[in-house]
C-alpha cells in the first residue's frame, strides 16, 4: 500500500484528490465511478460514508448521502467497498466520516477495521481538535494518519495546534462555508497556504469550492500539495442518474482535464 508520504514525495505536482460518497447512487455504480477516477489519474481518494445529517456538507453532497443511504449503504458495507477499491489499486484513501457513525460502530474497532481494508487516514467532519483526543489515540494505534481541517478564519495559534495533531495532510478549507462548487475561488487560498507552510511541514491539500481544471491549477500554483474536488464530481453523478455509463465517462473526462491542468 502506498502511503501519503511516498505519494506526495513522488509527485512533482499537486496531487489530484477526487471525493466520492460511498454507495452513490448505488454500490455497483459507485464502484465503477471510483475505478474510472483511479484510471483517469487520481493520486489519492477522499471517500465519505453517507450520513443522514451531514452538517459540514452542502446540498449537493447531502443529496448524494441520501441517495446512497436509500440504496442501502451502511458503515460496514462502506468498509467492504473500500476493500474492493484497494484490491483494485493500492491507492491512499482518506476517509471523511461523521462522528456518530464511528461512535456507534465503536471508535477503536472502526479504525482497526478501516486500516485492515487498506485505509490511510481519517477526518471526522464534526470533530474539532478540541475533542480530538477521543480519536487520535485509537487512530494512531490502528496505524492511521489523522487529518484535520484548517479554515480561513483559523487563528495562527490554533493553526499550529491543528498542525501538531495532523499527520498525512492538512485539509485546508478554501473559503468559509460548506462544501459546494463555487464559480470564483476566493483569494484567501494563497495567504492561507503560505501561513500553513510557515508552521508545518505536513502536506497541505485544499478543498471546498473547486469546480474546474482552471481553479485546480490556481490552487496548485498557490502552493497546495493537493487539490480535493468533491461537489463538482458528485454533481456530475447527480446530473446523469439515468445514464450510468455516461456518468462514468464524464467523471473520467473531468478528472483527466484536471490532471492535465495540474
Amino acid at each position, binding site marked *: 500500500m502506498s502511503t501519503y508520504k511516498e505519494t506526495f514525495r513522488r509527485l512533482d505536482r499537486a496531487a489530484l484528490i477526487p471525493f466520492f460518497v460511498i454507495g452513490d447512487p448505488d454500490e455497483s455504480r459507485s464502484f465503477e465511478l471510483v475505478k474510472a477516477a483511479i484510471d483517469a489519474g487520481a493520486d489519492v481518494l477522499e471517500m465519505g460514508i453517507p450520513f443522514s*445529517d451531514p*452538517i*459540514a456538507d*452542502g*446540498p449537493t453532497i447531502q443529496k448524494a448521502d441520501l441517495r446512497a*443511504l436509500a440504496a442501502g449503504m451502511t458503515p460496514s458495507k462502506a468498509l467492504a467497498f473500500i476493500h474492493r477499491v484497494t484490491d483494485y489499486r493500492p491507492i491512499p484513501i482518506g476517509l471523511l466520516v461523521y462522528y*456518530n457513525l464511528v461512535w456507534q460502530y465503536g471508535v477503536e474497532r472502526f479504525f482497526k477495521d478501516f486500516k485492515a481494508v487498506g485505509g490511510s487516514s481519517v477526518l471526522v467532519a*464534526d470533530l474539532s481538535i478540541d475533542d480530538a483526543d477521543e480519536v487520535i489515540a485509537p487512530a494512531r494505534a490502528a496505524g492511521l494518519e489523522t487529518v484535520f481541517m484548517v*479554515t480561513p478564519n483559523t487563528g495562527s495559534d490554533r493553526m499550529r495546534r491543528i498542525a501538531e495533531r495532523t499527520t498525512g495532510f492538512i485539509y485546508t*478549507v478554501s473559503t468559509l462555508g460548506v462544501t459546494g462548487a463555487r464559480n470564483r475561488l476566493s483569494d484567501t487560498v494563497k495567504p492561507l497556504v503560505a501561513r500553513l507552510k510557515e508552521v508545518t511541514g505536513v502536506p497541505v491539500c485544499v478543498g471546498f469550492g473547486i469546480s474546474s481544471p482552471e481553479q485546480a491549477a490556481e490552487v496548485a500554483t498557490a502552493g497546495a500539495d493537493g487539490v480535493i474536488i468533491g461537489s463538482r464530481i458528485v454533481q456530475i453523478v447527480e446530473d446523469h442518474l439515468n445514464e450510468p455509463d455516461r456518468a462514468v465517462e464524464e467523471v473520467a473526462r473531468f478528472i483527466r482535464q484536471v490532471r492535465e491542468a495540474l
Partner: protein
Amino acid sequence: MRHNGRFGTFGGFYVPEVLIGALEEIEQAFDRWRDDSQFCQELEALSRHYAGRPTPLYYARRFSDQVGCRVYLKREDLLHGGAHKVNNTLGQGLLAKYMGKTRLIAETGAGQHGLATAMIGALFGMETKIFMGTTDVARQNVNVHKMRLCGAEVIPVEGGTGTLKDAINDALRYWTAHVEDTFYLFGTAGGPHPYPMIVRHFQTPIGHEARQQCIDQVGRLPDVVAACVGGGSNAIGIFSAFLDDAEVRLVGVEGGGRGLESGQHCATLVAGSVGILHGAQTYVLQDAHGQIRETESISAGLDYPGVGPEHAHLKETGRAEYVCADDESVLDAFALLIRTEGIIPALESSHALAWLMQQKGQLPPDAVVVVNLSGRGDKDVGIVESHRPLQ
C-alpha cells in the same frame, strides 16, 4: 473555548472546524455580558415591559378537580408571542446587539421560536432569516405569515422530512458561510456549547418565578414540576430552580406520537440511545448504524430526534424522570383544559397535561403539581380541528 460545555459526560461541541471561531466568540460575549449591570437592566426592562414578565402562577381549580390533585399552571402562554421562546430570543438578541452583529438567523419547528426571533429582529432592527422545514411551513402557516409580517425572510427547507432537524442542518450550513456578521439565535437548550448553557440561562426566570410564587401562594414547594420536552428549553427553564430541592419531583414529557411501539414518535430520552447530533453528545433517535431516524408528533415543536444535553444528564443521574404522552392523550388534555379553564394550551404544553391526566388516582389529592404551560394553542386550533372536528 473556555468551558468544555459538558453536563456530566453529555454536551460538548461536535462541530466542523469552521464553526469553532463563531462559537468561541459567542461564548466570550456571553461571559462578558451575562452579569454586566447595563445588560441585565436592559434585559430586565424588556422582559417586563415588552415580553410581559413575570407571568402568573395560576391555580387551575376545575382542571384540578378532573385530575385529582392541585394543579398550578405557570402561564408562559401569556408572554408576548405566545410562548416562553421570547425569554431566550430577547436574551440572545440583546447579546447579538452588544456584539455588534447586524443579522440574525434561526431555525424553527412549530414557528414559535421563529416568530420570537422575527419579533426581536424587528425590535432591534436586524435583518432576520428563519429556516423552517417544508412540512412545518405547511402545518404552521399562520406563524409563517406572522414572521413575514415582522419583516423576516422565511426559508423553506426541503431536505429530510422537512422538520426541525433539517431546519437546523440548513441554518448551520448558512451560518458557516456567514459567520462574520451573522448571529445564530439557537432556539433550544441543545446544540453545541455554548448554546445549552446560554438558553438555560435566559430561560431560568421561569423556574425562579414559579418557585417563589408557589411558596407565596401555597406556602411550600410543589411536589411535582412537569414540563414538555422537545429540545427541552422550557423544561430546563423551570427545572433549573428546583434542582437542589431534592423533594421536588421533576417530570419531562416527550412526544409519544402514534405510540412507542409504532416507532413514530419523538420520545428521545424515553426510547433513544446516546449519540452525537447537532454538535452535542446526548440521547438521539437513531438506527443501529447511527443514522438519525425520522420522527413523528402532532406537535411540531417537539418533533426532533435529539434533546438538550443537560436533560440527558438529569436522566442519567436520576434527578429528573422522562416519560411520554401519545397524540391521542394530548388531544384529550388539550380539550380538557379548554373546557374546564377556558385556556387554549399549545399542543406541546398539552403533553405535560396529558401525563398528569394519566396520573389520576396515583397522586394524593393534596399533591401540588406545577405545570409549565409553555405556550398557547391558537396556532394549533386548525390541527386539532382536523383530528377531532367539532360536531
